[in-house]
């Protein structure tokens, strides 16, 4: 029986046995090392962010090779926002935070894509983060006026920029003689300058009212005192001397203007007067150079006085060219090229010419190079340093020693259109290589400041687009346009005078749309300023003083008369000033509008 019991016990023990599965599947996967390069953007800024009230932050994060699956935003080390989107916005309320600097951190979790088990279960991630400084500033400071300056017939008022994000608007006020006028409402915080075109003189007080989203505050008042109106020009017509006064747009207590000679109130020197606020011309009988004239605007409480002296130009320019953005006029004289500073009123650099046949060809309109040469040599000068010069022979440019340089036009990026006696070449002065060469003779070519367009003036006029190494004709005029030039400050704008229409045109070379002069219609144009479109044209009336020239602006009638002493047949425009360049001449200042 014991054996039976033993067998049962043995069987029972064996019945408890259980299979134990064996084996492992070991997969070799490389452990990821370098975290991804993540791009963070928060409100398009890296700098401190000013927060004054509940603020919406716009974020975006990206990394090129990894998959972002979680973004956390921490403000002041506390989790403020969690999202799975790689872009979006969230708001933070600074209430409960004292004014001061805090940290806002964008923490990005992205998959390693290693393929490991942890990666698949999002338990293995790259964590990258970026921090921004957030300045909580719940105070509200109004902007202050920083300066008031006189401009052309107006006042220019400048104030601090409101830099906090809760900006709503600026309101710009003027107080004159107890009467308050709101001049502007400005909703762009970046605008910090405005002009007061209606300022007529005397004391005016200005202030700015700054609005944020919930309140407004007023700046300190800044006062300005000036005498106005001004004599802006003096001219002559039909034997009558005319004194031009700045146009009044507003003046509530105007009585009359009165004009005196020699800064006196002597009745004997009283030249004329007008009682019409809209009449900006006072006629008088005599006028003399070197004399000072006084204009008084008379109002009940005060006289506002301005002065103007008629002077003569002190400098003569011959064979001169100018660049618009520099202070210099370059001229040829006494076998030298001179750099003449307009502000210093003297020559500041000079270089001896190659020989007597040397001529001044072109100055790139901004700052690049000045070129001059004789028939077989072209020399490029750095306008700011005559020691920097490069010399090209006609063989370098034309590939022909027998060809001669006739005319050069240079773009701001160093592309030169060079007319030779036998051929025409477009040449890259920087890289010293020929862009294109044509074995045809061109007499007058201008290249645009960006080197994209080229106008060829012969018996007819053709506008080309320089496309790679070829010229594509985009417009043709059947007549010879005159006074043609590209505007150096507006891209691809061509200004020209069209004799058949007696019109000055501005044409956009891209759209070929034309703005035409509406009223100027000069009959005898002799110079046009490519920037302003100011046209100097010969006035047929003669008198004992000399020739007279009208100045008109494209699209706007500007019938002022300037007096010149002698004949002027060559002109330089420089920053809206016209310099004659032949013989004895006057400096003619283009009047303010």
């Amino acid at each position, binding site marked *: *029986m014991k*054996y*039976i019991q033993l*067998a*049962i016990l043995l*069987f*029972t023990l*064996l*019945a408890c*046995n*259980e*299979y*134990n*599965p*064996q*084996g*492992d*599947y*070991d*997969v*070799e*996967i490389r*452990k990821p090392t370098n975290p991804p390069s993540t791009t963070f953007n928060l409100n398009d800024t890296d700098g401190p962010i000013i927060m004054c009230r509940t603020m919406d932050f716009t974020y975006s994060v990206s990394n090129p090779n990894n998959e972002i699956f979680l973004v956390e935003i921490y403000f002041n080390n506390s989790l403020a926002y969690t999202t799975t989107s790689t872009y979006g916005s969230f708001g933070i309320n600074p209430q409960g935070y004292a004014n001061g600097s805090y940290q806002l951190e964008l923490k990005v979790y992205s998959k390693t894509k*290693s*393929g*490991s*088990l*942890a*990666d*698949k*279960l999002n*338990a*293995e991630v790259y964590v990258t983060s970026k921090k921004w400084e957030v300045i909580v500033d719940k105070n509200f400071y109004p902007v202050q006026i920083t300066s008031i300056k006189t401009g052309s017939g107006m006042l220019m008022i400048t104030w601090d920029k409101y830099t906090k994000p809760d900006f709503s608007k600026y309101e710009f006020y003027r107080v004159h003689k107890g009467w308050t006028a709101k001049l502007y409402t400005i909703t762009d915080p970046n605008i910090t300058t405005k002009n007061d075109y209606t300022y007529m003189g005397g004391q005016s007080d200005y202030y700015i009212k700054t609005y944020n989203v919930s309140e407004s505050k007023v700046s300190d008042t800044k006062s300005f005192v000036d005498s106005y109106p001004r004599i802006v020009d003096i001219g002559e017509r039909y034997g009558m001397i005319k004194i031009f006064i700045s146009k009044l747009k507003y003046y509530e207590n105007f009585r009359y203007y009165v004009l005196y000679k020699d800064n006196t109130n002597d009745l004997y020197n009283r030249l004329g007067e007008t009682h019409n606020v809209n009449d900006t011309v006072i006629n008088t009988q005599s006028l003399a150079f070197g004399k000072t004239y006084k204009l008084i605007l008379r109002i009940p409480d005060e006289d506002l006085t301005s002065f103007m002296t008629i002077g003569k130009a002190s400098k003569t320019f011959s064979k001169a060219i100018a660049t618009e953005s520099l202070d210099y006029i370059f001229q040829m004289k006494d076998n030298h090229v001179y750099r003449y500073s307009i502000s210093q009123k003297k020559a500041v650099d000079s270089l001896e010419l190659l020989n007597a046949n040397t001529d001044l060809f072109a100055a790139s309109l901004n700052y690049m190079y000045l070129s001059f040469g004789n028939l077989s040599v072209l020399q490029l000068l750095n306008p700011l340093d005559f020691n920097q010069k490069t010399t090209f022979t006609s063989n370098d440019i034309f590939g022909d020693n027998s060809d001669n340089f006739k005319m050069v036009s240079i773009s701001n990026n160093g592309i030169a259109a060079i007319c030779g006696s036998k051929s025409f070449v477009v040449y890259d002065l920087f890289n010293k290589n020929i862009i294109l060469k044509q074995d045809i003779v061109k007499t007058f070519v201008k290249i645009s400041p960006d080197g994209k367009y080229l106008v060829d003036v012969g018996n007819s006029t053709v506008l080309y687009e320089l496309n790679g190494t070829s010229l594509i004709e985009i417009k043709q005029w059947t007549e010879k346009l005159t006074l043609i030039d590209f505007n150096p400050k507006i891209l691809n704008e061509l200004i020209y005078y069209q004799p058949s229409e007696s019109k000055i045109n501005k044409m956009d070379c891209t759209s070929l749309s034309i703005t035409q002069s509406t009223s100027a219609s000069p009959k005898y144009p002799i110079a046009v300023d490519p920037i302003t479109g100011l046209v100097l044209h010969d006035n047929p009336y003669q008198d004992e003083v000399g020739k007279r020239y009208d100045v008109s602006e494209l699209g706007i009638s500007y019938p002022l008369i300037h007096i010149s002493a002698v004949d002027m047949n060559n002109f330089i425009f420089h920053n809206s000033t016209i310099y004659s360049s032949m013989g004895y001449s006057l400096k003619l200042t283009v009047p303010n509008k």
Partner: protein
Amino acid sequence: MNRKILLILVCFITFANTLSAQLCFNLKLGKGTYEMDGLKDFNSKIINSLPVSAKVVDNFPKANYWDGSILYEYKKLYVGVNLSHHTTGSRISYIDYSGSLKYDQIVTSNSFGPIMKLNIKTNSKLKFYPYIGLNIINTKYRLDEELIVSNQHSSKSTDLDATSLLFNLGIETVYSFNWVGFGFYAGYSKNNQGKLYLDNEEAVLEDGDKVYTDWTGFRYGLSIFFEFDLKNCRKNNTIISE
């Protein structure tokens, strides 16, 4: 279940003790192969649902099993009861530098039922016994899941059970030395696939499929055969105790 089997066994021994002259114990130690197609399919589904490419590294291999019978000899025929114990299992494994996962399926069964043997060569010491049996088989199923990622460890066990019928057929040869004999056997078992139950609810996978155990397969191994003359045994026991 084991208690019931033991109770039936004790009853049988008591019954045999009162009636028989010859009682035999037959213990078999062998290997069995198991089809387990349902559970293998289940492994495939597990693998397909995993985020990584895991593998089955142990797939219900042939495994040791135990089988015991108590038989009453009547002329050339042995009739008795049979108890058997089977176990096998499988493992799905995946290990990389970041962690590991493991799915172990362990199936263990105990079966009980009548068995009948026929001695077809009685006059020799080398005997041949064709046998046939039908057992009720009770299966314990356990699924051990283990996931280790970084330093995080999680595991879970699920227990299910199944009951089915197992039909056994085979032949055994024994060489006898007086009351003990040694031999080997070979046979085949057919199982009618047992549905697995979890807390008396039929286990159904997410895709609607049901999971079955299937112990069908070949059996072979060694056997020990004890033959006792119970009357003599009682006598002997009396003498010993005296």
